[in-house]
């Protein structure tokens, strides 16, 4: 039996190749891919991310960082008045709004930063257990990026979408949710193709309705 080359093994472990038919038949190559994945994980654990010193944040311009703060403050204020939002899972809405505020306050709101759906959509492959719909957004909406989020022990996709200076958080999960009522903070919940979409933002409701039509 011909085995995979070391490059093939690296490409499969790095998600660059989906051609894994041979692995089902060959224990040696399957073991090599497993080993490659373990090495990747070991490298990640051995090479920590460094915290950005406050001095560097100032040197790269306090203003750009502070630029995010009004958004975070607005989102935090929204939490205070959001309690009229109920979903079928009790206070789950609060958790998602918390997550929305936390992510907007973070300098790393997204792990994949791209306005290109052809970059963002494949990035989710292998990271969440479903194909993440990432449509070609039309102005005024613009894709900023995405990341994986966990909610009630299930992985979901998070898309950060910009509308002018406003940021819209779009959470996508498999589990079903139901919005009963919303007030003050804008949210939109819908189901499509077996997935639940939850959009949260400080934009008018009609904007989220328009966004919904894009998906």
């Amino acid at each position, binding site marked *: 039996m011909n085995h995979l080359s070391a*490059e093939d093994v690296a490409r499969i472990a790095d998600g660059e190749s989906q051609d894994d038919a041979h692995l089902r038949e060959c224990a040696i190559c399957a073991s090599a891919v497993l080993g490659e994945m373990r090495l990747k994980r*070991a490298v990640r654990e051995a*090479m920590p991310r*460094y915290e950005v*010193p406050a001095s560097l944040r100032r040197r790269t311009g306090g*203003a750009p960082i502070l*630029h995010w703060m009004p958004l975070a403050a607005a989102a935090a204020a929204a939490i205070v008045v959001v309690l009229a939002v109920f979903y079928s899972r009790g206070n789950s809405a609060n958790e998602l709004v918390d997550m929305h505020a936390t992510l907007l306050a973070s*300098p790393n709101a997204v792990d994949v930063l*791209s306005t290109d759906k052809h*970059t963002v959509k494949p990035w989710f492959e292998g990271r969440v257990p479903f194909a993440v719909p990432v449509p070609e957004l039309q102005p005024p909406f613009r894709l900023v990026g995405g990341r994986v989020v966990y909610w009630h022990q299930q992985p979901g996709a998070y898309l950060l979408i910009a509308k002018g200076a406003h940021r819209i958080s779009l959470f996508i999960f498999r589990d079903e949710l139901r919005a009963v009522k919303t007030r003050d903070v804008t949210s939109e919940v819908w189901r499509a193709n077996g997935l639940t979409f939850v959009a949260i933002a400080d934009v008018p409701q009609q904007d989220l309705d328009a966004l919904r039509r894009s998906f």
Partner: protein
Amino acid sequence: MTFEELAVPLLSPLYTYARWLTSDAHEAEDLVQETFLKGLRGFGSFTQGTNFRAWMYRILRNTFLTSRSGLKAQTSIDDDPERFEKLPVESTPESLLFARYDVDRLRGAIAELPLPFREVLLLVDIEEMAYRDVAETLSIPVGTVTSRVMRARKKLREAMR
């Protein structure tokens, strides 16, 4: 989008990348600051919608390579794909090899890697960049990225034996 909107989310990963390139906190700070300044100055020529992340990483890397420590860190490696393309998989059970690895030793082995190998590991394993983005960042063909990733890991395995 403005430069700030695009660049600020990259501050943390760029700083981590700079730390691993320079191995020095102060030098990394200077490097990131210079990268931001260069990025801001050159933003007019950046095409919106293209890969901003790769663009910023490339600025940081080029800035590093022209610095004193960057010049010292540059190593010439053989990237001839003909020589490496068909290396067979190693039959050593990797699951045993990395089941109980020593973090400090692995970190030392990574630090000892020649720069071209260390940086592909950083970008692929830590930043989880796709090969094509790494290729764009390092201005090398995708095939060379694949070859370097494979060889970098091979060197790590050898160092950990």
